[in-house]
C-alpha cells in the first residue's frame, strides 16, 4: 500500500519539476510583449507560420534573441527592425509601405473601385 502510494505520488508530483517556465522575464509586461511579438513575426524557415507556432532551430534562436533585446530595453519597433534587417521584410506580417509593397496596399482599393464602376455602369443600361 505504501509503495503504491509512493509510486502514485511520484507520478503526480514529477510534473512540477518540469513545469517551470521555459523563458525567464524581468517583469510581466516584458512577458506580454514577448508573447505578442512572436505572434507578429513570421518564422523565416516556415511557409507561413509565426514564431509562436514554430519549433524550428532558427525560431528558437530568434525567440531567445528577442528576449535578450527586450532585456536590453529595445522597443518593439527596434526589435522588428533588427529582424527585418537580417531576415528581410517577409518576417513581418504587417509589411511597411515601400515601393515593393504599394501594389499590395492599393490593390484592394483598386479592385473595389473597379467593381463599383462596373456596378454603376450596369445600372445605367
Amino acid at each position, binding site marked *: 500500500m505504501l509503495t503504491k502510494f509512493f509510486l502514485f505520488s511520484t507520478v503526480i508530483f514529477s510534473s512540477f519539476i518540469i513545469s517551470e517556465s521555459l523563458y525567464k522575464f524581468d517583469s510581466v509586461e516584458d512577458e506580454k510583449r514577448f508573447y505578442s511579438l512572436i505572434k507578429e513575426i513570421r518564422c523565416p524557415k516556415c511557409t507561413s507560420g509565426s514564431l509562436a507556432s514554430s519549433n524550428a*532551430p*532558427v525560431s528558437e534562436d530568434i525567440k531567445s534573441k528577442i528576449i535578450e533585446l527586450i532585456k536590453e530595453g529595445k522597443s518593439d519597433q527596434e526589435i522588428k527592425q533588427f529582424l527585418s534587417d537580417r531576415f528581410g521584410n517577409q518576417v513581418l506580417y504587417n509589411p511597411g509601405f515601400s515601393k515593393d509593397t504599394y501594389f499590395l496596399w492599393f490593390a484592394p482599393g483598386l479592385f473595389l473601385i473597379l467593381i463599383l464602376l462596373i456596378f454603376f455602369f450596369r445600372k445605367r443600361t
Partner: protein
Amino acid sequence: MTVLIRFIIIVITLMFFSFFYLYINDDKYYPGADFTISDMPDFEIKDLYSERLFNIKDLEGNYLINVWASWCITCRVEHSFLAKLDSKDIPIIGLNYKDEAQDAINWITRFGDPYKYIIHDYKGELALDLGVTGAPETFLLIDGKIIVHYRGEVNDMIWDDVFMPIIKKESLFDAN
C-alpha cells in the same frame, strides 16, 4: 454593356494564366537568392580545431562563406561541388553551424576539406546576424560586403546563374 463585362472577364483570366506561365517558366528566378548588399557583421568565433579566435579583421578580400553542419544532409550533397570550387582556388570559409566540434571534424576527415578555414559557430550567433535560416547557405563577399546570400544547395546551375554573373562583372577569382 454585357459585351464589355465578358471582355473584362476574359482579359483578366488570360492575364492570370499568362502571369503564372511566365512566373513558372522564368529560369532566372531563384527564390533562395538575395542580392541585397550589406556589411559583414562583427563577430568573434573560435576556430573549429583550436582555441584561436577569429574576428572580422581576419577576413579580407573576396571570398565565399559556406554555412554547413554535419547533421545537414543537403550539405553532404553540396560538398562535392565545394571541392570543385576549391580546386579552382576560390577561397571558401566554412561556418560550422550548431554542430558538435568532434562531429564536424569527423565529417571533414571523412569527406574532405574544401575550406580555407572553418569557424565553429556553436550557438549560431554569427549565423543569426547573417540572417541564416538553416544549412546550407552560401555568401559571396567582396571587400567585406555581402553581395549575394543564397539559401539552399549551391550546384553547377546555381553557381552559373546566381554567382557567376557577379563574379564575371567584378572579375573576381580570375573569373574562372
